[in-house]
């Protein structure tokens, strides 16, 4: 079981089991997590599945590609050093316990 916690802008915490989903975005979508729009369906084109990676997690995730880097420049909410696109985060057992804060807007 790979448990991921989403922290909504109002502070509400939502824990989901990412289970067999391929990416964190798809796991969020399958649990209906509000705040992950994923307009492009996970094709790395829209920057509407933006998340802030909390705690010590940023250093433990695989480094981002130049495409993800460029897309994040266009994210609707402020880009921070811990910004990532959840469609580019593959679900692996190592992600168990991951905490992701949701931005106040995606478009």
């Amino acid at each position: 079981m790979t448990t991921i916690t989403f922290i909504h802008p109002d502070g509400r915490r939502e824990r989901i089991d990412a289970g067999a989903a391929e990416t964190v975005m798809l796991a969020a979508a399958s649990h209906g997590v509000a705040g992950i729009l994923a307009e492009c369906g996970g094709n790395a084109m829209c920057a509407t599945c933006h998340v802030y990676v909390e705690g010590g997690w940023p250093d433990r995730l695989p480094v981002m590609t130049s495409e993800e880097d460029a897309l994040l420049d266009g994210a609707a909410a402020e880009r921070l050093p811990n910004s990532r696109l959840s469609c580019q985060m593959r679900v692996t057992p190592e992600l168990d316990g991951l905490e992701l804060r949701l931005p106040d807007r995606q478009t």
Partner: protein
Amino acid sequence: MNPQGFSESTNALKHPAAIPHLDVDPFAIDFFKDPYPDQERLREAAPVVYLDKWNVFGVARYAEVHAVLNDPLTFCSGRGVGLSDFAKEKPWRPPSLILEADPPMHTRTRAVLSKVLSPAVIKQIRDRFAAAAEAKIDELLQRGTFDAVADLAEAYPLSVFPDAVGLRREGREHLLPYAAVAFNAFGPPNELRQTAIEGSAPHQAYVAEQCQRNNLAPGGFGACVHALADTGEITVTEGPLLVRSLLSAGLDTTVNGIGAAIYCLARFPEELVRLRRDPTFARNAFEEAVRFESPVQTFFRTTTRDTEISGYHIDEGQKVLMFLGAANRDPRRWEDPDRYDITRKTSGHVGFGAGIHMCAGQLVARLEGEVVLAAIARKVEAIEIAGPVKRRYNNTLRGLESLPVTIRPV
């Protein structure tokens, strides 16, 4: 035509469940008039069907359409995304460097358009596009009754997109006819395609000329494409053809997308009420209209090797027709698929395609759709159909020729 085709002779041996042959012609006027019963037949017959009329395979269920879109090495685009196989037939125009291309070439050209149309770029044009949408809706409220196709779905994109590309003012009347030809040409050699290509010379000449670097205003999308030739990301000769992709695919698609959204709100007034109550649904109301109407109905791929889709064998060199519109209404994927619901979770619909060829201009399309619907949400009380609705027939695009409406201010 050999209606029995090769599929029965070879495939029946390789797969116990033969691929059903259907007599549906998805490029016939009667199909366009009401595609839904036939799309259901295509979907329900099997995961893969064979269309005797044009000797092609077809996939109409969401899972299979999605799978084909996401396997571009097996289902290639370089042999054309229409019925015509570029390995056997001379294309009607020089092939697109992005739509009708495969990796590794496609990877390079795609990166160029992704850069030119990136989220960061779209942020910069947002205010301008929104102001133009406000002004357009204000103007239409003054008129009261108008044609939502010509006066809104066409007029709004024409008022913002050619300027964003950096086109000269003169000659813009060729843009929509050129796009109509391009989308008709993906179809089979029926009357729609033949007539379109026969009349295309002046439109092609305009587009070829307009794509040249010296005809594009500085700062526009077109100039940005050409600028990437300076840094070596594309060659000087590739620039004009990549600009052509913006002109082929950037206008008629949003015209039909916005037209679809207005048509939806006119037919389902309770959804307009919901939109007015919460205008933040504007963007999703547009996205849902793209799912619901699927302005781009179909595209082909060509198999690069003997392969299987859901266990059904297909030989190398075969055309596979993807029914995007049918996939977007597949009850296996969508709850209550024939309902237009502005609050639906639309992520994953294939109205913009999926995978490496997914619409490069989707962010421009969403921006245009969102700002038009947001202006309507704030200013328009009701949209009523005020005359006969006429459909426009195109081998690939689904949309209207005329949609007379009356709108009332809030």
